[in-house]
């Protein structure tokens, strides 16, 4: 009698695995950089290439680094949300303009609005590699010590901001 239960048990295990697999997004790869210092960079500023901004300039501040490009459709999808987040004034958004043309990026900001405190140009994608970026948009939260505390992969939507990112931002701002 118990033998006939074996296939049912095997089937149940398979169902459990497949169901778990269905619930996971294969595009979201956990970043090994969480909890580690954000990679150092010094990059030219979009619109004023003679100016350089470094990661170290933000020590003591909680910042949100958003990787985007004018070629990226997901970035267009999240742009309104970024504008709304910028309007709350909770956290400065630093844009990492990834593998883009300056002209296209400037036109994008002019046409759609600019949620960024500053935009840094990463044409060759070197800084993006150091951040472990594999597809835009990706967003990193960086605490006052310059550590990456969270990564959000894919377009940010309002609920992700209020429920996932904002609590972390507030917590990081309170920490010394």
């Amino acid at each position, binding site marked *: 009698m118990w033998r006939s239960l074996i296939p049912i048990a095997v089937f149940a295990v398979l169902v459990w695995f497949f169901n778990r697999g269905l619930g996971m997004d*294969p*595009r979201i*790869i*956990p*970043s*090994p*950089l969480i909890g580690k210092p954000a990679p150092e960079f010094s990059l030219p500023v979009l619109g004023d290439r003679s100016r350089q901004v470094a990661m170290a300039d933000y020590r003591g501040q909680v910042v949100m680094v958003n990787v985007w490009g004018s070629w990226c459709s997901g970035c267009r999808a999240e742009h309104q949300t970024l504008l709304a987040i910028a309007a709350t004034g909770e956290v400065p958004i630093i844009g990492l303009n990834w*593998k883009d043309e300056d002209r296209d990026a400037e036109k994008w900001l002019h046409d759609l609005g600019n949620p960024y405190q500053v935009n840094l140009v990463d044409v*060759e*994608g070197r800084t*993006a*590699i*150091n*951040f*472990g970026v*594999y*597809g835009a948009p990706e967003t990193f939260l960086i605490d006052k010590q310059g550590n990456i505390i969270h990564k959000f992969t894919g377009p940010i939507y309002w609920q992700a901001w209020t429920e996932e990112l904002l609590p972390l931002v507030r917590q990081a701002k309170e920490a010394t």
Partner: protein
Amino acid sequence: MKRLLTLLILMTWLPTAGFAIDSELAFQDPALQARYERLNAGLRCLVCQNQTIADSNASLAVDLRSQVKEMIIAGRTDKEILDYMVERYGNFVRFKPPVNNETIFLWAAPAVMVLGGLLIAVSIVRRRSSLAVDDEEQAPQGDA
């Protein structure tokens, strides 16, 4: 018919024949080129997921290949290059992930399945053969 078969075999073989995806060789030195290709073939293109960076022309794959090339030129070892990628992208970037607590099931699964299959096969064969013996034993009884 034979010619057609040869053609078909060639066609299935051709795409895997190891053409470098770069338009020109990355290195003049064949040994370095071989190293470069071997490293690329072990690194996942994370946007395409099921391709290596040696197979893909996604811009990330191009960037990662040039990173590998630069690191080879800089005299880094294979291990240093792999570690560099894993530090940034996690073990998922490796096509052959290392054996650890997270991946042990992945590595053990084939062996477990083969063993399980063997056990099932053996038990079926045993039951069948014992049935056959029973039949033989019963047969003379039936005659008597």
